[in-house]
């Protein structure tokens, strides 16, 4: 039941945000709504730890432990991003324009609704539709500035991801055909995993490749990633935090769900595809990070890099690697949302997202400078942050399972990306400030969001609470057969 209520709250908040009363009502409704959604998701997560599955509508709306983790992440980022939006939108995106503010929050809630739906839908055809809805509900958020650059980014975004969606659609339909060759069960993840040993391998493989290419476009895997840095560089910073979770993490979750299905059929070629695609993404993104000139593009490429890391970890296979992959999903989502809030803060402080023209942030705006430095270290994977822990476990799992080449390449690319991220951030935080650079002071809501989003990336790097560890463990079992 909680699952249905979560969806209803998101839809209601979208509708209520449009009520034309001042400029405070819409953010207030969104904050309350996302807080309620987060608390309910927390409850879902606790129930998922105890019983295997939270069922709202059998074979249609249900959430197992893997789904619960994604749901919790989306809800958490939805909450912190809505708090961050409060000060950011009012001061930077839609200054003194109550109509635009209301429109922003209505789209925000719709976008959140479609993302929350993905992990809790069991029927794969409906999952495809929810993935399609994330695109259409976020495209006007990407184009929110209404400049020619933001329209260009939105256009590339919708065209490329819709092309991917059409490929994924054929994949989903072929998958359904495969399921029907062995019976007439419901078209759900669990049913497919159960019956996949009987489905002809060729059908599964064709379906898998179409789905990997199609959804890989939306998750931002190289070479279908070209829309991603453009969209991130144009979207408002809190939307980037959501995009990085929605477009990437929830869609990657759908791709990862394919692995146990394929393992039933023959061999582990899904693992091989994952490792190859993942390494290409990590490698290309690591080198592209070095040459970026725009702070948001920096973190966009870092998202591509992390999607690749997760894919490699899932492809290596084995309980240790799957555990590490799940942990990486969590730590990346938390660190990346924090990184985009830090980006937003530095944008507010300097009014400029061009890396070369921001220097000596530590003197002009200590809060955003410190958070940017923390974000850089956290996302690049320095100890004691959560990403370090998960990346370390991935490499360890890779080495113990004998994947020396994949692990070696992964470690090499991670080091390059680390260096690239820190090189740019270091120059922005320290150095001599440009005279006369003036920005807007940060609002209380921005600082609250930074603290809220920053706390878990530090805490989870130091210790994993018992129930959370159990949830990650249960979810990682679902990544394999």
């Amino acid at each position, binding site marked *: 039941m909680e699952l249905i209520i979560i969806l209803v709250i998101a839809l209601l908040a979208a509708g209520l945000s449009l009520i034309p009363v001042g400029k405070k009502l819409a953010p207030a409704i969104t904050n309350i709504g996302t807080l309620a959604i987060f608390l309910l998701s927390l409850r879902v997560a606790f129930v998922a730890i105890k019983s295997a599955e939270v069922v709202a509508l059998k074979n249609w709306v249900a959430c197992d432990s893997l789904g619960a983790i994604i749901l919790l992440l989306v809800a958490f980022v939805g909450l912190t991003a809505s708090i961050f939006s409060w000060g950011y939108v009012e001061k930077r995106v839609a200054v003194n324009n109550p109509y635009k503010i209301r429109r922003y929050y209505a789209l925000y809630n719709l976008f959140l609704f479609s993302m929350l739906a993905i992990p809790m839908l069991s*029927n794969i*055809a*409906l999952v*495809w*539709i929810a993935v*399609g*809805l994330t*695109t*259409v509900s976020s*495209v*006007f958020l990407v*184009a929110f500035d*209404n*400049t*020619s*650059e933001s*329209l*260009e*980014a*939105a*256009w*590339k975004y*919708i*065209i490329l991801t*819709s*092309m991917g*969606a*059409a*490929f994924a*659609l*054929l994949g989903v*339909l*072929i998958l*359904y*055909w495969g399921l*029907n*060759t062995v019976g*007439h069960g419901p*078209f759900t993840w669990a049913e497919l995993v159960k019956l996949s040993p009987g489905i*002809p391998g*060729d*059908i599964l493989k*064709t379906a898998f490749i179409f789905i990997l290419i199609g959804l890989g476009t939306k998750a931002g895997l190289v070479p279908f990633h070209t829309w991603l*840095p*453009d969209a991130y*560089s*144009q979207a408002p910073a809190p939307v980037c935090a959501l995009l990085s979770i929605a477009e990437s993490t929830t869609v990657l979750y759908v791709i990862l769900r394919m692995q146990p299905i394929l393992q039933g059929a023959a061999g582990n070629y899904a693992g091989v595809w994952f490792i190859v695609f993942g390494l290409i993404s990590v490698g290309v993104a690591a080198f*592209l990070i070095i*040459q970026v*000139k725009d702070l948001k593009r920096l973190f966009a490429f870092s998202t591509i890099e992390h999607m690749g890391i997760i894919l490699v970890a899932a492809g290596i296979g084995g309980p240790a690697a799957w555990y590490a992959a799940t942990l990486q999903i969590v730590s990346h989502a938390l660190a990346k949302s924090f990184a985009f809030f830090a980006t937003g803060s530095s944008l507010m402080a300097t009014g400029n997202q061009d890396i070369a023209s921001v220097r000596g942030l530590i003197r002009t705006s200590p809060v955003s400078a410190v958070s940017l430095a923390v974000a850089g270290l956290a996302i690049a994977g320095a100890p004691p942050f959560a990403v370090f822990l998960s990346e370390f476990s991935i490499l360890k799992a890779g080495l113990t399972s004998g994947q020396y080449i994949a692990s070696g390449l992964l470690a090499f690319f991670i080091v390059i990306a680390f260096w690239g991220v820190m090189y740019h951030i270091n120059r922005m935080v320290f150095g001599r400030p440009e005279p006369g650079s003036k920005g807007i002071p940060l609002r209380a809501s921005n600082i609250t969001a930074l603290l809220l989003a920053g706390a878990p990336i530090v805490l989870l790097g130091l210790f994993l609470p018992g129930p959370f560890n159990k949830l990650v463990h249960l979810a990682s079992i679902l990544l394999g057969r």
Partner: protein
Amino acid sequence: MLDHNTTLSIFAKLDALAGGLFLLSAFGMVAMRQVLAYLNLFALQSVLLASSAFVLGYQYESNHLIAVAGITLVVKAVLITWLLRRTIDREVYARREISQALNIPSSLLIAMVLTIIVYFVSSPLLSFASDPTIKFNLPIGMAGLLIGAYVVTVRREAVPQVIGILSMENGAFFAGISIASSLPLIAELAAAFDVLIIALVMGLLTRRIHERVGTTAVGKMVSLREE
């Protein structure tokens, strides 16, 4: 591809006719220059998709497929065509689009190569086909998808790109009506709604680009890229 020993029923023949015309309309989109003709061709292709669904539905006495045919006809052939005409300035449709990354004869050749590749890729799958219509619909649908993807890649105008994407979806559904004919109706309805929303959003975005940037030649918008 076909086993000539089996005689095909009249319905399978009708379905094959719809499939052949469907593939021809995909090739037509590669060759077309005028923007308005594109839209008409898309409407025609949607009618062919609906008629294939209707033939299959009639043959197997499946109300579900006949409902799919109805949904396709209403949403794709009528609503989407009307929406795209309403949201985008009439002047755009009168345009004759010349600039294209590759000229039309070589484009047609590539489309042909894509079709041949599709037959190679799908032939191992066809041995699992329980029904002769799958042997028409699956490769033709897949070819429609790939040719649509090619159209989106080479065209520089906004409207042909949108229609290319919609025709890709038509291709996927053309395969789907035969291989996934028992997909729950709720999913079919939601998918039709999804396609409708995508068409609407793309139409609105095209209009905004036209108003703001003054052109719909989206292929020429290249201010964002890596240096």
